[in-house]
């Protein structure tokens, strides 16, 4: 998933970003409400975030206000609040302001990952944890992929490409969209990185598992079912 992390604390932000990347997410990290507004709300539909991890106590304003503003503008990106405010009233206010989930610091990275997976399932309208396309089954929780009954060994990036494609079965994703889904702002990308990942996936899962839409991008063949 491509995530926007809004956290003003330098060290916690760095740790969360690294932790989320370890889970295979592309993470953009901003440290103020203003930056978050620019990257997320102002970008409108173009904002490609699958979810926002939001801290409430920001130096230039409340995260809650930011969330309300986003919802007013019908920005539907799922939001998970991660804050030190632990009162029940705060949680209620956060959820009622439009948050999809609420976590109190200290946040366990594994729990955060699980909650993000739950958000992802909800958005995809899927209740079972595994994503199944043809004979391929992806377990996001364990980051394992099986074909038939055989485990398939994928790198983190390969899995990220596969997940990005599998999340919208049948839809064609452009190179830019895949880059967005895979890489945060600061990460350096080699120009043919996506092609390399696609090439490896085809070799491991079967050449016709990923179809090339010339000039448009790629999609999963099994997604047409």
């Amino acid at each position, binding site marked *: 998933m491509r995530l926007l992390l809004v956290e003003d*604390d330098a*060290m916690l932000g760095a*740790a969360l970003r690294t932790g989320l990347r*370890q889970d295979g997410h592309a993470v953009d990290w901003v440290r103020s409400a203003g930056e978050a507004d620019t990257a997320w709300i102002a970008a409108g539909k173009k904002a490609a975030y699958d979810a926002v991890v939001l801290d409430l106590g920001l130096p230039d304003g409340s995260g809650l206000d930011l969330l309300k503003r986003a919802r007013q503008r019908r920005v539907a990106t799922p939001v998970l609040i991660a804050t030190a405010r632990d009162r029940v009233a705060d949680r209620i206010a956060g959820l009622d302001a439009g948050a999809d989930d609420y976590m109190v610091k200290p946040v366990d990275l594994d729990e955060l990952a699980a909650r993000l997976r739950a958000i992802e399932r909800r958005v995809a309208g899927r209740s079972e944890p595994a994503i199944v396309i043809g004979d391929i089954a992806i377990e996001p929780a364990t980051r394992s992929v099986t074909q038939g009954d055989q485990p398939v060994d994928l790198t983190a990036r390969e899995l990220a490409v596969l997940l990005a494609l599998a999340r919208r079965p049948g839809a064609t994703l452009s190179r830019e969209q895949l880059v967005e889904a895979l890489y945060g702002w600061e990460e350096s990308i080699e120009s043919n990185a996506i092609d390399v990942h696609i090439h490896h996936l085809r070799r491991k899962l079967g050449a016709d598992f990923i179809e090339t839409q010339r000039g448009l991008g790629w999609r999963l063949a099994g997604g047409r079912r």
Partner: protein
Amino acid sequence: MKHRGWSLRARLTWLLVGAAVAAWIASSVWLYRSSLEQTNRLFDAALVEAAHAVLAVVARELSHHPEDEDEAEIELEAVDHAHSESIFYQVRSSRGEIVFRSPGAPREPLAAAGSAGFADARLPGGEYRVYSLQARGERTTIHVAQPVRVRTQLAQSAALRLLLPGLVLAAALAIGAWLIVRRVTAPVIDFAGAIDARAPGDSTPVRLDGLPAELRPVGLAVNRLFARVDDALRHERTLTADAAHELRTPLAALRAQAQVALRARDEGERGEALQALIGGVDRATRLVETVLALARLDARSLDRAALPAVSLDRIAAEAVGALKASPRAQAIRIELVVPAALVRADPESLPIALRNLCENALRHAASRMRVEASTDGGEVTIAVRDDGPGMTAEQQARGFDRFYRGATDGGGAGLGLALVKRVAEMHGGHVRFAAGLDGRGLGVELVLPGTAVEHKA
């Protein structure tokens, strides 16, 4: 409330009753004396009258028997008087013999023969008031006398008539006084009860309406005390809440970094995470230390009259000297313009405040910072300025709040300026934002009134 000490009510009641009884007794004594005086005058007049009556009878009798004046026993029935039963008389011849004596009159002469006017006689039969009269060319002396006892008894009975019902009334008075005192002191008891009945955390002001003028100052003082306690409590609560919030974030960061290290897939990633973890521990340590320093300052109250004279220039030099350890100090020019001066200040907290100001300036300075001080009419102003990005008016409005960090996160906990403010307040002074350097940056001025001692030579 076990040790009640002396009771206002009991003391007032006893004083009131005591004063009334004393007044009663005093008035009885006065009445006794004045009625005695009155009786004396009246009875003296009666004595004189009786003496003349006796004289008239004696004169008549003697004129009938002028020859045997010494032997004649004369019945003086004609002598009658209102107080006759208590008035006695003797008629003495020129030789001093008692020739006439009223019934019941003492046998001893009542006064010296030949005496005249009033006299007091002490005879075996008692004390007498005597009036003597010379008649017939001093050949005959008439003594008219009355026992003093008659007079004192009269006066005593008059005084007792007042005193006796007084004893009964004194009991009634005691009850009345107690009721009055109860009524009058009820506001005091109510006031005490109102304060006593409060919940431990309740520091709302006591209601002063209905309180007597004498109690108002006490009420006001109590309310001032409550306000101070409330202030301190609220301060404490805010700090606790803020500290909880602010401590949770670095702890959350520590936990997350530790987890990142655990989940790391290679040595490089793990090393990075552990390095960040150590940085986080250092930061949390600094935060805790600052919070503790602030808490200590909060608990500390200065006796401003007893502050020692400390060397301002030395404190400033030490604060600046402490900056040298920071790597940033190499890139920033630090100017120190502090006159040699002694100020009355807390030698513990003032250096902490100054060090915080200097650290802030160094953290935000672009190329230089300056520490300056001036003394003006006893008022000491210490200013630390930098040429950094400065603070917006909005940020300045909250700049001295605890845990306010501003938009630019310099890695501090947002406590430094709050600490400086606390130190200023402890000294009865204040702290304010001022101009920075070169038309930008930030200056912070610490103003301590009445602390300058003298310029050193």
